């Protein structure tokens, strides 16, 4: 580290060392340094927030206190880094600063401990490790990576899914409540109440700050991956927004998937999720035309797909699929890989895709999966075969409010030349969608089918 730990702790008090040291001609350099510092802090916020908060939470034993101390540490960095330069390891600098602040606060005020205490599980002693003695100096050099504890706590099944999502964005990604509320199109007060309620449940019900043991891990991991995937899909198809893609949520989801993969490189479903997001995201730039109009997979400009992302995603698929029965993210990634590597929509290996959807249905019996399978069947065996499957799903009723069912049905009817029925189905889809780009697309199809 460039900055000495003592300076780090002193910097916890912005202004203590005084800006007055800068005089005259230094103003310009200061302004430039300030700009660099601001960029470095923004970068550290994006990259290091989860690491810093997770490590601080363990010392603070209290989520709210940890959040406050981490925010203070970022403020302190603004002052300290512009004076001393950006440290080699910003994450360690921020963590040391935030942890010291937490320890200071805890020493000064015992009453704070009752606030929103976090149940910290002591690390089990490692057999053959050093005998108990004086504890090593806390946090100056080696800071344990607690990010997984943080993620698993945020996504605990005792919390409602919407609370899991909100907490993950707030605590793991460092988004403000305002930003989260905007991303999910809910009033800020609603989101604030949701976050507060979830934090209270964590402490009142004693949800432990730990990574689950091997027996619980598969289920608990699935909850975490579901949250990350939900973030991605919410960003990818914003439910009511003007743009099809809400970039920030997408980026956060990608960051989370990468972080999980780096922390749990042997978990096949984590690999599967990362692959799926990469392969889906590689097509992000081609999902809408320059006018913002939605383009179907069939109409997208494949030459503009991000080949580097596709290569990275495809390389992850075998490791996700092999080594036991594949999970749902791994199978979805395999399907996405077939799409990504196909030279055109027509030349896609639809038979294999139908087969993979069959595998997916066996591990994840969802009507949405069945709908996707029906679309693939239509490509492999003709629109009539696909339509039969979709009509069966309609009877089932579970997708009554799902806009993509009438949209898919309309498309097959259109291809079969049954225009009047197609228009009716497009109208049903239009009634169910609030996304502006999707509405435009459907309105366009209705006009075409009515005219032709």
């Amino acid at each position, binding site marked *: 580290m460039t900055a000495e730990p003592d300076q780090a702790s002193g910097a916890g008090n912005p202004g203590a060392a005084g800006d007055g040291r800068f005089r005259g001609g230094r103003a310009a350099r200061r302004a430039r340094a300030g700009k660099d510092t601001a960029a470095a802090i923004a970068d550290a916020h994006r990259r290091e927030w989860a690491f810093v908060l997770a490590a601080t939470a363990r010392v603070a034993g209290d989520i709210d206190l940890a959040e406050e101390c981490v925010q203070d540490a970022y403020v302190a960095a603004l002052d300290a880094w512009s004076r001393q330069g950006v440290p080699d390891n910003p994450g360690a600098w921020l963590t040391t600063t935030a942890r010291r602040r937490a320890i200071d606060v805890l020493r000064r005020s015992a009453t704070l401990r009752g606030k929103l205490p976090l149940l910290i599980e002591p690390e089990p002693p490692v057999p053959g490790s050093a005998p108990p003695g004086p504890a090593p100096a806390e946090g100056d050099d080696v800071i344990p990576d607690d990010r997984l504890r943080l993620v698993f706590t945020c996504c605990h099944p005792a919390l409602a899914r919407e609370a899991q999502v909100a907490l993950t964005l707030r605590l793991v990604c460092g988004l403000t409540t305002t930003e989260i509320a905007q991303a999910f199109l809910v009033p800020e007060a609603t989101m604030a109440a949701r976050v507060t309620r979830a934090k209270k449940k964590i402490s009142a*019900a004693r949800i432990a700050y730990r990574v689950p043991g091997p027996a*619980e891990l598969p289920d608990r991991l699935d909850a975490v991956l579901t949250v990350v995937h939900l973030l991605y899909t919410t960003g990818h198809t914003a439910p009511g927004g003007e743009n099809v893609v809400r970039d920030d949520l997408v980026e956060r989801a990608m960051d989370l998937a990468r972080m999980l993969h780096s922390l749990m490189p042997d978990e096949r479903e984590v690999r599967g999720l990362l692959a799926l997001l990469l392969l889906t995201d590689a097509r992000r730039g081609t999902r809408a035309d320059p006018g913002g109009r939605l383009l179907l997979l069939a109409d997208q400009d494949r030459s503009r797909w991000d080949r580097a992302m596709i290569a990275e995603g495809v390389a992850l698929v075998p490791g996700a699929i092999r080594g036991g029965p594949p999970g749902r993210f791994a199978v979805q990634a395999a399907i996405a890989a077939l799409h990504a590597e196909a030279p055109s929509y027509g030349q896609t290996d639809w038979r294999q895709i139908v087969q993979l959807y069959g595998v997916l249905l066996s591990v994840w019996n969802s009507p949405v999966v069945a709908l996707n399978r029906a679309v693939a069947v239509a490509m492999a065996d003709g629109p009539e075969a696909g339509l039969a499957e979709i009509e069966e799903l309609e009877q089932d009723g579970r997708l009554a409010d799902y806009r993509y069912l009438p949209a898919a049905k309309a498309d097959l009817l259109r291809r079969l030349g049954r225009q009047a029925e197609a228009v009716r189905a497009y109208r049903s889809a239009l009634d169910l969608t609030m996304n502006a780009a999707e509405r435009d697309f459907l309105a366009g199809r209705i006009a075409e089918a009515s005219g032709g």
Partner: protein
Amino acid sequence: MAEYLILIYEDENGYATATPDVFQEVMEAHNRFAQQVGEKGGKMVAGNALQPTSTATTIRADVVTDGPFAETKEALGGYYLIEARDLDHALDIAKLCPARFGGVEVRPIMVFS
């Protein structure tokens, strides 16, 4: 260790129409559960079965009425007070709690300090 209340909510009709064999099974399941709590590293503090909601009396603002507080298909029929390390431990134990005509709710006991 912390205390949790396991509330057993079941369809009372299930017991009203149950055969003696079913009652026997249920009793045995509860006896087994009392033992399993200790085996799981928790502690059984207390537990009781309640008379059906037809015996309940509700008081709101001093007005006494016949019947349970809320008419629901699945009614509170019994409870256990247990000690567990944390929520995961409590849930692990609560999963073993018999409730063949319904399910259970787990609530942390409030600690005043």
